[in-house]
């Protein structure tokens, strides 16, 4: 089996007495969708924060494509090929959908210290942005400011921005949140196709979508991974049933 793209080894993070991440280890392999699930307050956000670089772990290491990225900042990790979408849509509000994608393309090229050429007249950049918008079905909304897009459209634009980065792995934080059933169905199809380009670490609350998509699942409870396995293994794991059903009952 190929080397994992992303490896977390024994991560720890506490806020005061609260152990938000308590010895988490997991891997993301090429070509897979690895879903991370867990009840509210299990520490998913903190874990995502540590992978993306917004939160520094107290102990443990994060390895990405052979590099130790544990101490790198958000921008450095992104440049190495870590592409993420945000749980709550986080776009550039005044920028059109096209400009949001163009900014990601420009970041991918690493050419942000160019002062002279007008970026909107850069046909190459524009056409590639439009092609990506086409792929997620937003081509017709290219010139609408992202603040004026609908909720579902903003979720798609999040994906488009992540696509523009051509990352080596996707970190998708609840991409389906707030989407209608139809939108979720389309996105499931899209992500299944996407994982062949780069593996996806998927944090998602929509269990139907997770079960439909995930090659592997990890269940996070109180900052610990209590189980990792295929969909069937997880469904039948007594600890998971207890944690989940106990939580929800």
């Amino acid at each position: 089996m190929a080397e994992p793209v992303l490896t977390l080894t024994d991560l720890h993070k506490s806020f005061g007495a609260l152990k938000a991440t308590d010895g988490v280890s997991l891997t993301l392999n090429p070509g897979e969708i690895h879903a991370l699930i867990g009840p509210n307050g299990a520490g998913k956000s903190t874990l995502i924060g540590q992978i993306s670089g917004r939160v520094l772990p107290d102990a443990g290491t994060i390895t990405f494509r052979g590099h130790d990225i544990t101490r790198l900042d958000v921008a450095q990790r992104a440049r190495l090929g870590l592409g993420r979408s945000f749980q709550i849509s986080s776009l550039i509000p005044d920028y059109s959908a096209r400009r949001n994608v163009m900014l990601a393309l420009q970041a991918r090229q690493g050419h942000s210290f160019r002062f002279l050429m007008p970026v909107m007249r850069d046909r190459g950049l524009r056409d590639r942005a439009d092609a990506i918008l086409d792929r997620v079905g937003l081509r017709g909304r290219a010139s609408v400011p992202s603040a004026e897009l609908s909720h579902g459209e903003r979720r798609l634009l999040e994906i488009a921005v992540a696509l523009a980065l051509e990352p080596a792995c996707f970190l998708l934080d609840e991409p389906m949140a707030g989407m209608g059933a139809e939108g979720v169905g389309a996105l499931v199809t899209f992500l299944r196709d996407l994982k062949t380009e780069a593996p996806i670490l998927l944090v998602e609350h929509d269990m139907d979508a997770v079960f439909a998509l995930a090659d592997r699942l990890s269940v996070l409870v109180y900052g610990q991974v209590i189980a990792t396995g295929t969909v069937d293994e997880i469904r039948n794991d007594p600890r998971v049933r207890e944690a989940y059903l106990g939580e929800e009952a």
Partner: protein
Amino acid sequence: MADIKREYALNALLALGLLLVPIWALYNGAPFTITLFTRIAILALAGIGLNIALGLGGMVSFGHAVYFGLGGYVAGILAQHAFNGAPILGLPGTNQMLIIWPVAMVLSGLLAAVIGAFSLRTSGIFFIMITLAFAQMVYYFAVSWPAYGGEDGLPIYVRNQFPGLNTMRPFELFIVCWGVLMLALGVFALIRASRFGAALMAIRQNPDRVASLGINPFGVKLAAFVISGMITGLAGALMADLSRFASPAAMAWTMSGELIVIIILGGTGRLFGPVAGAAFLVGFEVFFGGLTEHWKLWLGLVLLAAVLFNRGGIVALIAGRERLG
């Protein structure tokens, strides 16, 4: 689209009006008017500098007067050394604007790099207070350093020279300042439309998102802050030549406040915002200053009303709010 046309029309009106009134004044013997318009051009130039940091990058610097004042001291100090023939740091002084300007810009840029490196570690209210405090530090240094006039400032006996023009004539000095202003407007427009500008304006709106794309917000902001300081420093050098005086007052916190007022009243981030703001401020002072010695009270009230009731300044009032394609 009508909005964009109106903005173009307003910009053209401002650029030409700024040129045509002094030409009229030249032929009607009104040198005071020419000097007034020179002041508008220089303040607008200083405002363009701040507009890059504040308007495009969202960095509310309350200490931009420090670059304005520093530029003035560069003009004053180099002129003094040219006048008395004493070398400065082993080099001769100069009274050539074309040498003074780059020196003023480089030194202002260096100062902005140092101040920015500290202040950009913070944001929001901290940033405002820290930029103010650092500017005040340099101000007190200038006031208490006796070699170049201290509290009294530094007179420039003969205006620095520009090749082919007699800068002692008000109109010829005005043309120099107007030309520099137009150039700076061009630079601002280029930066705003460039990839750098795209990153900078995006950072203003959502720095976390930009970082997650792989662009380090700190580097982009620092670069913008340095460019911003350089342009304001250049304006300071011109102002010292206009008033023939390098003054510590140009570094005072009130000047920093005035620069912010110019930008906000004109229109934050808008190309001609600083021009509209500077014209308004100077016009207000001349008009109301002639009516009452308490004109600043009225300025305060107008400003307060502008903040509370109108968003977007003069340019937005005429051409609507801006949309970024």
